């Protein structure tokens, strides 16, 4: 005997504990099973790309903090790299190293958050995420020492970084690097070997390499599917070509592998940091930008505005969430003519339907958690 049932629609979000912001997921359910998933975006749309066309290149840097607010350093970095490409600026060596160090610290902080929140989505009721916060706080302390802010950092500048690190920064960073491996071991023991976490995430939300690449997925999600692709290796920027590190790759492309890859990447970031702190040279942290490109704009006392030559530039980096790219078109005026963000959160979200149809509601939440979206970046 079959019991007649009809599908019903459940809205997960925009107000929901596990949508990581204001993302909305319309699930059509047959009992607990998902038969259709519909993503509705735009609840956090702040029109950043359009607003950026009204502001000078320097004024746009704070916007890039506020797209991916869990990884402001990498947002800054990708944007200033695009503008530097446009202006053909040579960035001093020390600034490149500082950028690399900051980006890797940011990656650890962001992945810690991602792993913690993922465990939270599995129902671990805040404990893992609070423990991850313990390490993230230490990294945010380092950021605060370097630039005065903890979340929206605004540290990178066109041609370098805003200021050099203070002398007490290095000892504190080294101390952190010494503490972190113990913590990582603890997390691996408690989370990666946890029977319930394995039961909840093995074989869930699988993406094959073909599917992942055809959806243009990047970052830990792509690497979890077994594709060894990392912009840091494939198209090195900053000082990544001078340090030694591995690409962490998953085996089966499921939720568990994304989790494993993130944890492994935290260790690789640590490896990069250990080398970078030893190898960083002395020197200036900001390029001398010629007067030809620096001109007063508007009022005589107004901040200096760069006028890059007419042209377009695209710069990409490996942000904690994936390949983050900024595409900027200049018409020679102090404001960009076109400002576009290739945000990894948005693109990684696109195969969500593919991953979650046929699974249960509980799985959909875990899958969404494994994508590690930041809605500020999805909607811009």
């Amino acid at each position, binding site marked *: 005997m079959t019991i007649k049932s009809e599908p019903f629609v459940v809205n997960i979000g925009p107000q929901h504990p596990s949508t990581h912001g204001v993302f909305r997921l319309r699930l059509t*359910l047959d009992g607990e099973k998902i038969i259709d998933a519909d993503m509705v975006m735009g609840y956090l749309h702040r029109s950043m790309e359009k607003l950026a066309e009204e502001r000078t290149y320097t004024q746009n840097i704070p916007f890039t903090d506020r797209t991916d607010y869990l990884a402001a350093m990498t947002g800054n970095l990708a944007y200033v790299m695009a503008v530097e490409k446009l202006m053909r600026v040579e960035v001093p060596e020390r600034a490149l190293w500082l950028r690399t160090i900051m980006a890797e610290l940011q990656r650890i902080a962001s992945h810690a958050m991602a792993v913690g929140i993922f465990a939270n989505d599995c*129902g671990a*009721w805040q404990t893992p995420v609070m423990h991850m916060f313990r390490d993230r706080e230490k990294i945010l302390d380092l950021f605060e020492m370097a630039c005065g802010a903890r979340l929206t950092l605004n540290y990178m500048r066109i041609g370098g970084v805003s200021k050099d690190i203070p002398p007490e920064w290095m000892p504190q960073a080294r101390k952190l690097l010494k503490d972190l491996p113990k913590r990582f071991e603890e997390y691996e023991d408690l989370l990666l070997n946890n029977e319930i976490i394995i039961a*909840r995430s093995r074989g869930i939300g699988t993406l094959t390499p073909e599917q992942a690449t055809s959806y243009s997925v990047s970052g830990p999600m792509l690497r979890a599917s077994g594709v060894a692709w990392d912009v840091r290796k494939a198209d090195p920027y900053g000082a990544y070509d001078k340090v030694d590190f591995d690409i962490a*790759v998953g*085996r089966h492309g499921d939720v568990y592998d994304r989790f494993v890859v993130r944890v492994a990447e935290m260790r690789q970031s640590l490896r990069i940091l250990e080398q970078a702190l030893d190898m960083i040279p002395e020197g200036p942290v900001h390029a001398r930008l010629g007067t030809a490109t620096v001109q007063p704009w508007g009022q005589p006392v107004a901040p200096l505005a760069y006028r890059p030559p007419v042209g377009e530039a695209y710069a990409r980096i490996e942000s904690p969430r994936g390949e983050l790219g900024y595409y900027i078109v200049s018409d020679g005026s102090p404001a960009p003519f076109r400002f576009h963000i290739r945000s990894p959160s948005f693109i990684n979200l696109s195969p969500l339907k593919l991953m979650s149809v046929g699974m249960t509601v509980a799985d959909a939440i875990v899958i969404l958690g494994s994508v590690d979206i930041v809605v500020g970046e999805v909607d811009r």
Partner: protein
Amino acid sequence: MFLLKGEWYDLRDLGNTVGGLLDDLRDIGAPDWTIYVTSSLIGAVGILLWTVLSCLAFIWIERRVVALMQNRKGPNRVGPAGLLQPVADALKLLLKEAVTPRSADRVIFWAGPVLIFIPALVVFAVIPFAPKMTLADLNVGVLFLIAIAGINTPAVFLAGWASNNKYSMLGAMRTIAMLISYEIVQVLALLGPVLFVSSMRMGDVVAWQDHFNTWIFFIQPVGLLAFIIAGAVETNRSPMDISEAESEIVAGYHTEYGGIKFGFFYQAEYLAGFAIAASIVTLYMGGYTLWGLEDYVPAWLIFLGKLYTVFFVYIWTRGTLPRLRIDQLMAFAWKFLLPLMLINALVVGAEVLIWRENDIDATPALLAIGAVNLVFGAILVAGWARFLGHGTGKQRGQRAILTQEVGAVHFTPEPAP
């Protein structure tokens, strides 16, 4: 024992005090029914007061303990060390407007919280807090325990159904499926103590454990484990809190409830937790006895101490474990716990039969039974888990592959489960 021989000021058993009062009543010539009503009222009010106070205390304890596990401070602003936080919360819930959604079924919407609260409280009627401190020492106490706990199920379903909310509906459906499955496991687990004691009276179970100077825990380890797990399901405790899984279905069946109606659910959850802990203590852990200590320390304090210890285990799991999925939880009940408990019941039956038929001395018999059950239980659990595909190395955590080669593909399709 000492000079105190059941006098009214013998606080080792509050039953003495009440007994003294009732004797006074009888002396002044009150009719029998007043004595009967008075004693019930005293017991009921006492239990109500105790549960409310324990609830308030444990809201604070749970929040502080979990905060400790999570590197936080927990509530520490209202009153000394945040002790008044639960009181403030309770007041807030009382003063809040009790909103009923327009599309809800008003009568059933109200019935939900009331229905869930009553059984959670009534369970304590059969719990012996001390030798003379049982409100109603029914001869079918264990059965009463299960029957009353079963009222929980329709109450949750009514609440979820009447809310007319999809999250509530999902939560209620999950709860029904879950509770029905685990109730069977619970009943089968309770067969162990009942078979050993050959009585369903809760007082007899405690007396049996006292008499043989053992805890049923030692001769029924697997049964206790199953009962604890089933209890976690019944009280919606992590890792089985899927009926109100916060990260999935917001608050499950009580999503639409606010104010004091939510307060009822909240308190009922604690009461159910205490009830399960009380059952575990009575049936498996010697109740109010503690190897002679009950002669010196008030027996009810020993009972409460044990109860809070067991409840603490539930808090602990809540602070540390992630949540299972509904199908995994159901599979665990039907494929793992149920067969295990059936075999356990068979083994216990055989052991009791052999013991009675052959008239063996208690000490060697209990030692043998304990050893056999422990070893057999361990083998059974491990073997059955292996049979279901756990612990074969397939479930072990894997580490990522590390490579330097850009663009290489290391994908292997997931082996079929």
